[in-house]
């Protein structure tokens, strides 16, 4: 899994640089620049939201609510460099709120649910088809849910905002850095158990 797996045509510029550049241009009156901002940040927001265990449909709703909130509140973003962090924080809060609400919903028996679900391959099943990805995916699957969530959010953030992460993941601010290191170590251990790496 390396550079060759990246989406074709992806710019060298990080989504964060693209986002702040587009945001500044838009604020200076370039109406089309907001499309660049949306294109750069939507995939990042998707992964951040999915880290909270939302299904694809709910994840799409939360990403949409994030953009609508952005349209409403963009003037409150004082530092254009912070637009990506602002969006990510907003998406995380939306995802966390959604998953809290979803937990309050009535649980359904797996057997009942199975019949109602589309017969599609899960992301996990697809990953298993690829040997290398299978080892990495297996290693990630073997760590606890909190680790998985933290790693996915952190992997898609340039500069993690530990203050707000701590509230949503219910961890003290000071323990996020060490927890991240421990979670990565767990993945590494699982990988080495699963084969050479």
């Amino acid at each position, binding site marked *: *899994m390396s550079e060759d797996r990246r989406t074709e045509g992806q710019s060298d510029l990080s989504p964060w640089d693209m986002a702040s550049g587009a945001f500044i241009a838009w604020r200076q*009156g370039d109406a089309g620049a907001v499309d660049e901002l949306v294109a750069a940040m939507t995939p990042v927001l998707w*992964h951040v939201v999915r880290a909270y265990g939302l299904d*694809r449909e709910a994840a799409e709703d939360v990403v*949409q609510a994030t953009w609508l909130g952005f*349209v*409403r509140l963009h003037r409150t973003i004082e530092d254009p460099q912070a637009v990506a962090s602002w969006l990510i924080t907003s998406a995380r809060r939306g995802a966390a709120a959604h998953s809290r609400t979803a937990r309050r919903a009535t649980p359904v028996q797996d057997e009942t649910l199975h019949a109602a679900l589309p017969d599609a391959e899960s992301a996990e099943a697809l*990953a298993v088809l690829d040997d290398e990805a299978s080892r990495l995916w297996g290693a990630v699957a073997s760590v606890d849910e909190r680790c998985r969530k933290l790693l996915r959010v952190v*992997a*898609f953030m340039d500069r993690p905002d530990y203050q707000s992460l701590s509230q949503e993941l219910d961890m003290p601010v000071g323990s996020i850095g060490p927890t991240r290191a421990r979670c990565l170590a767990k993945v590494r251990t699982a990988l080495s158990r699963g084969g050479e790496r």
Partner: protein
Amino acid sequence: MTAESDAALLVELRDMWTTYDPPPPDLVATMIAVVAAADLDDEWEMLVLVRDSADEPAAQVRGLGTSRILYFTAAEGWSLDAELDEGQVRGQLLDFDGDLRSVEVEVETTDGQSWTTDLDEVGFFAIAAEPTGSIRFTVRYRRKAVSSRWVEL
């Protein structure tokens, strides 16, 4: 393990999630449409510069040889008249169909200076400012902001 190897593993994880749990193919297009449909065009309507005394020196009928007179229109039908002279930016909002008291006018320069003021009851404003470089006007009312392009002074 070093911070470097942690970062490398995070990159691998990011690639894995990107590859095996990609956003729906039309998500970006949908979100662009969502943002465009959220009244954004209205909020960022442009004030179009239709008259600039720098382009038509013969039109300086007020006899103020030193002043720069700019006239903008907005698609909604109202317009903004502005005059820059001797450390003052003065102007008037014309044909505005709304509460003039709720309107705020902002004058910005590309070097980051900005001045904001309210209008009086007939739509006049005056700001003590001597902007240099390029200037832009923004008119805010309710939740809308209408900006002009940058005008070189």
